[in-house]
């Protein structure tokens, strides 16, 4: 006789879970690049992380953010990205209050405001050597690894 173990997943339960996952993935489809209504300030910006023997590279997409408003802090194996995205300026500087009152928004998908994200890196880094560059809304940070985290070739002595 076949006994059901505790926690046994019935095939129909699996199917239901799978359908739930599919449904959730459709209804909360991630617009990939970004700052969405669902994204909280803790998950913005989305990042890609690369690693070599010598360094860790972080890349983030930050469209509409100027380098002056961006603050990057590196400590140990942690990196913090802080910044603020301004509300879009659609009216010319010379616009009057009357013009501003006529302004209506048909879509607001981009979001604005402050964000802060703390990242754990895969190695300790040399905070002094961290360099960041912001080009066309793409931020690239290169973090050289601390000497203690770099691979070291050990010489074997005979005798």
């Amino acid at each position: 006789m076949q006994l059901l173990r505790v926690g046994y997943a019935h095939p129909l339960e699996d199917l239901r879970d799978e359908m739930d996952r599919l449904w959730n993935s459709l209804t909360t489809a991630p617009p990939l690049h970004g700052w969405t209504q669902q994204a909280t300030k803790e998950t913005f910006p989305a990042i890609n992380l690369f690693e070599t023997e010598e360094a860790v590279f972080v890349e983030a997409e930050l469209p509409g953010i100027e380098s002056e408003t961006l603050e990057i802090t590196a400590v140990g194996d942690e990196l913090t990205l802080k910044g603020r995205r301004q509300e879009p300026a659609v009216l010319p500087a010379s616009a009057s209050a009357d013009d501003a009152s006529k302004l209506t928004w048909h879509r607001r998908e981009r979001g604005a405001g402050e964000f802060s994200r703390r990242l754990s890196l895969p190695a300790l880094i040399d905070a002094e050597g961290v360099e960041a560059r912001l080009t066309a809304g793409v931020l690239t940070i290169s973090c050289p690894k601390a000497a203690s985290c770099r691979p070291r070739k050990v010489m074997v002595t005979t005798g």
Partner: protein
Amino acid sequence: MIASPQTTAPAAGSPPVSPEAGLTYRPNVDIADCGDSLVLIADIPGSSAEAIDVRFEDGVLSIDAAVLPRPAAGTTVRREYGIGGYRRSFQLGDGFDGGQIEAGYQHGVLTVRIPRLAAVQPRTIPVKAS
């Protein structure tokens, strides 16, 4: 016609990360109505003015953008987004002046200003007392 992405010199010792073939994303946009014009703002990070094609045809505004290859190195530890082009179109209808559309690209953001034809701009008509 979309300009082909410029090839940028990769950092020493690192191969460029090319945009993934065939991957196209839908950019997030804000659209404002200023009365005499519509202003569309789209997040298109990693592109350039030459690689973005903005078109207005039969009342449809379409945006098609290619991204430039990005220098990167090493093995991927975490990947939260993909890299590809951007495409999106909007049905605006008649009443816009296709010849006067202006577009600019700065800090990874595309801004397109689409003026309304003078004939369809809202006008306040004063009522005279007889």
